[in-house]
């Protein structure tokens, strides 16, 4: 199949970027979107041009490293998929695709489609952990946790930190990401000790990193590859309000 790509090219955070058009033919509809970019880069390399830089790692939907906004949709048109798991069969032969980096002030462009998402790492560093030693698998199995709670905590823990929620949000809020991390630990007994300090610290760091305030448009939950729920944000708000009221200074 044939595709026309309008790809965002930008040398670094300080220079201005622009969309550049590329025509590709002889593509297989079974290629993943990233494999298609590999094909483009091979052609650019042969011509001696600078290749298009983009983030990727596992290419199996588990690491959260791939990004891209394709025709205005974070991770492409499938919804709840990562870009590496999006295949060309999701597009029409001859279609024009606009490929842009995840955009938010907290995600400065490094080059082309690559953005700096360490702001999310710093949110995790501020509270997304527990300080107690919980042992190995046998000890974990000896901690009584209701099956439903374990499942629910696991659903939140599934967040891969990709940042699609931020990229798609009109407020550039990372509320869904923070709520997944806060929810995951707040639901489990191991997370109770730092439950209150955690949510306050993570929300504060979220703001300091320059993410916006959630207005519950719900767009994030529609693109999240791990199907983290909008209700997780409400739960985070509950955790936050509970903490602010109960925590001792």
């Amino acid at each position, binding site marked *: 199949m044939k595709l026309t790509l309008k790809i965002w090219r930008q040398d670094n955070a300080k220079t201005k970027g622009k969309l550049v058009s590329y025509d590709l033919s002889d593509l297989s509809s079974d290629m993943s979107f990233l494999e298609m970019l590999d094909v483009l880069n091979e052609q650019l390399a042969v011509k001696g041009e600078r290749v298009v830089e983009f983030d990727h790692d596992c290419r199996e939907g588990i690491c959260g490293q791939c990004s891209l906004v394709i025709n205005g949709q974070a991770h492409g048109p499938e919804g709840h998929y990562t870009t590496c798991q999006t295949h060309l069969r999701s597009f029409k032969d001859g279609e024009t695709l606009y490929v842009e980096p995840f955009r938010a002030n907290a995600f400065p462009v490094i080059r082309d489609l690559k953005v700096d998402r360490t702001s999310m790492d710093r949110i995790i560093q501020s509270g997304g952990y527990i300080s107690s030693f919980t042992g190995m698998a046998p000890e974990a199995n000896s901690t009584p946790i209701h099956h439903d709670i374990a499942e629910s905590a696991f659903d939140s823990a599934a967040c891969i930190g990709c940042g699609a929620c931020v990229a798609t949000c009109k407020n550039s809020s990372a509320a869904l990401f923070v709520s997944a991390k806060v929810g995951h630990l707040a639901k489990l007994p191991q997370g109770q000790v730092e439950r209150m300090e955690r949510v306050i610290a993570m929300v504060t760091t979220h703001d300091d990193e320059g993410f916006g305030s959630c207005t519950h448009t719900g767009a994030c939950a529609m*693109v999240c590859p791990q199907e983290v729920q909008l209700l997780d944000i409400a739960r985070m708000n509950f955790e936050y309000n509970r903490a602010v009221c109960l925590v001792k200074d």
Partner: protein
Amino acid sequence: MAIKKGLFKTSVGRKNLMAVTGLFIVFFLIIHLIGNLILIIPDSFFPIEFWNNVANQHDMYNAYSHFLVHFWPITIVAWVLYAAIALHIIDALLITLNNWKAKGEKYAVIDNSTSTWISRNMGLIGTIIGIFIVMHMVQFWLQYKVLKIEHDLYNLVLETFKIWWMVVIYEIGIIALGFHIVHGIESAHRSLGIYPKKIMHIIKYIALYFGLVMALLYAIIPIILYFK
């Protein structure tokens, strides 16, 4: 105390203030609607014997508005309401400006299929309501309660809605209000941390139908008065 301030600061805290003030204004709007429905009671209902023998709609409406101005507990609630509106607007501005600042470069292609138009345009809808509120207060509240130029509020209201474009302006304000309520009530509960799935499901429906009914009931008043 430092952390307690977080209740109304931070990206989450500011939404608490938005929610509390918004829900208070909604509460006022219910009372305000009930009072104004007097305007559409059919003439055949009068005189109402069991209630001080109200002779007609004119007397009933003026008695009601007189009561509002002269009953002190209502004066207190009114001041809380003005404060709530002011805080709601200031907070909306702070949140919106901060969210604009958080945005990166504009996308060349924007796909809006993942959210509703209303949820994305609360600021715009709110601004329409804000302009409407100023006009509405200058027309009635200022004339009757502050400057005390007009003593017959019923006549003032009736004359206002004899002008067709006034009716149009009110309908626009009311539609905006209905939109704002539908997303606002759902969003407010989420902001305050209501997270059980079943409850949120019910709240979504309540928000939708409540907004619809409020808007419809408010909307018929100017139309009925125009044709009266």
